[in-house]
């Protein structure tokens, strides 16, 4: 079988829920778990109940279970344990359920009991789901391309807690704060909004770029230390903001003159820390100890930033900058 040497580029990053030295990097066709302390990686092999599979087809997304010992993977071939054209996957708190959000607007709950898997449709929005998040407070938030955010309870997802309405374009990403009581959302209308998910009230709206030239938010993530990192489609910068509990808004992050370059002046004059990268930022993710990982489109692909003395500074991780060819797999 001749395989053309297609580049296998990193598509997504997942941090381990408890172990700081582990980082999961999803490439187009394979999944590697990197051990940051020993500088090597191991390939993840899927275990279906029929056989071990090495070739995944095209990977879409993955996540760790809360105990970190299991990984759920969604691909486009519908052949693995979770046969669904999924957009997002996550584990429930007790590790007994896996939730998969798919393009048809469903959130399916797969219950794992020993070797049996039963599935049940939890939610059916009538629109493509773009992101899903299950908070520690057992709120399930689902957003779609219509611009709606539906927050319900879990596992009684038929009981909707609130609809967070206010975005004027598709909502692309969601992130609960670490307490699970506040929700951040980013949208194609260029804004990042902060919500109170218990009543759907919009607490704060951030539009860091001028309205003349808005940029779609493509990913955002909250850290345990009340920072939120936002990245925009097509832009090679990741913005980090600090979330303030007292004013329920985003505050300026103390920035070092060397690190901070304000890209475009905004009318609120919010000085934030802007992390500049070489190429378009695809995804940002925090780990448990607030180390920030940024995934870009071009080499060096993944860079990590440690939070020291009030701002994020780059730490080297050159070994992560590997792209590999499909022929490597054989």
């Amino acid at each position, binding site marked *: 079988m001749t395989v053309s040497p297609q580049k296998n580029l990193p598509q997504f990053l997942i941090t381990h829920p408890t172990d700081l030295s582990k980082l999961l990097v999803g490439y187009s066709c394979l999944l590697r778990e990197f051990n940051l302390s020993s500088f090597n990686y191991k390939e993840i092999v899927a275990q279906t109940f029929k056989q071990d599979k090495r070739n995944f087809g095209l990977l879409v997304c993955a996540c760790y279970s809360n105990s970190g010992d299991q990984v759920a993977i969604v691909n486009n071939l519908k052949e693995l344990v979770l046969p669904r054209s999924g957009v997002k996957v996550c584990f429930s708190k007790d590790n007994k359920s896996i939730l998969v959000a798919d393009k048809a607007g469903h959130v399916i709950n797969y219950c794992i009991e020993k070797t049996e898997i039963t599935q049940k449709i939890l*939610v*059916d929005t*009538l*629109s493509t789901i773009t992101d899903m998040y299950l908070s520690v407070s057992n709120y399930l938030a689902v957003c779609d391309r219509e611009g709606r955010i539906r927050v319900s309870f879990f596992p009684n*997802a*038929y009981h909707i807690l609130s*609809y967070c309405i206010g975005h004027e374009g598709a909502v692309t990403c969601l992130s609960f704060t670490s307490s699970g009581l506040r929700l951040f959302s980013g949208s194609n209308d260029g804004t990042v909004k902060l919500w109170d998910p218990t009543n759907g009230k919009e607490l704060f709206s951030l539009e860091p770029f001028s309205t003349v030239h808005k940029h779609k938010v493509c990913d955002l993530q909250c850290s345990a230390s009340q920072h939120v990192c936002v990245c925009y489609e097509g832009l090679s910068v990741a913005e980090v903001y600090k979330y303030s509990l007292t004013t329920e808004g985003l505050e300026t992050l103390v920035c070092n003159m060397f690190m901070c370059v304000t890209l475009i002046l905004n009318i609120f004059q919010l000085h934030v820390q802007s992390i500049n990268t070489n190429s378009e930022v695809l995804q940002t993710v925090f780990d448990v100890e607030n180390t920030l990982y940024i995934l870009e489109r071009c080499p060096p692909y993944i860079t990590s930033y440690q939070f020291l003395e009030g701002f994020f500074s780059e730490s080297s991780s050159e070994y992560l900058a590997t792209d590999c060819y499909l022929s490597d797999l054989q």
Partner: protein
Amino acid sequence: MSLPQKRFFRQRAHSNPLADHSLEFPSCPSKMDWSEHFPLFFTKLGERFNDEENSMKTKKKVEFADVGCGYGGLLVGLADTFPEVLSLGLELRAKVADYAHKKILALREQNKSTGKYQNISIVRANAMKYLPYFFEKGQLKKIFFLFPDPHFKKSKHKWRIISPHLLSDYAYFLAVGGLLYTVTDVAELYEWEIKHLSEHPLFMRISNESLKGDATVDLILNSSEESKKVTRQGGDNKMGEKYWAVFQRVEDPFIKLEKNTPSEV
């Protein structure tokens, strides 16, 4: 102003609710300008009524919603039976919504002296997707589904207005204790609706016997154009039978259960 004539408002019976119609809707419920629909009750968004009596009125909210109101027959009935309540009809089909709108405007004009029909209105909207843009949590006291499109084919079942997941939405907009009314002449659709409503933890049926003689039930059976057509032509089984049910929105039993069971350490 004379009442509009139906022959100028012909429209295909079915409309795809999942398509992206060019519909107008507010960016969120608090930004909706209700003065366009209920001019006597609301000022334009941002302005305020000066006098005491009128500013009391602006605290009102729409409480009855007729989903798929068609030509507006039920709304006219609700205007008379519940004059203090604001009722809103939602209809997806453009020409039908237009007809109902013109009818309401004509009725208001004809009844200027008594001020009737100021408490009903219609909006062209897709209830399956855009309800959260119009209503807030627990805002509605009654919600009506009269003679909905049965969408007989299995592949079209997802277009049915009563489905397990849409029921979660309706439960969100209905206040606890609010009522959901449904009537149809199609027996199979009635079975489907009863099944999904009974299975949904947030709804509990109120028996038909206990509601005999209820004014609202009388309205749902007789006031809409579709119900009159069923009486004339016999409906789906040619017997003129109308199957109806009323469900009440109840508290979440799961939460009650959690509160009662002691948490494990």
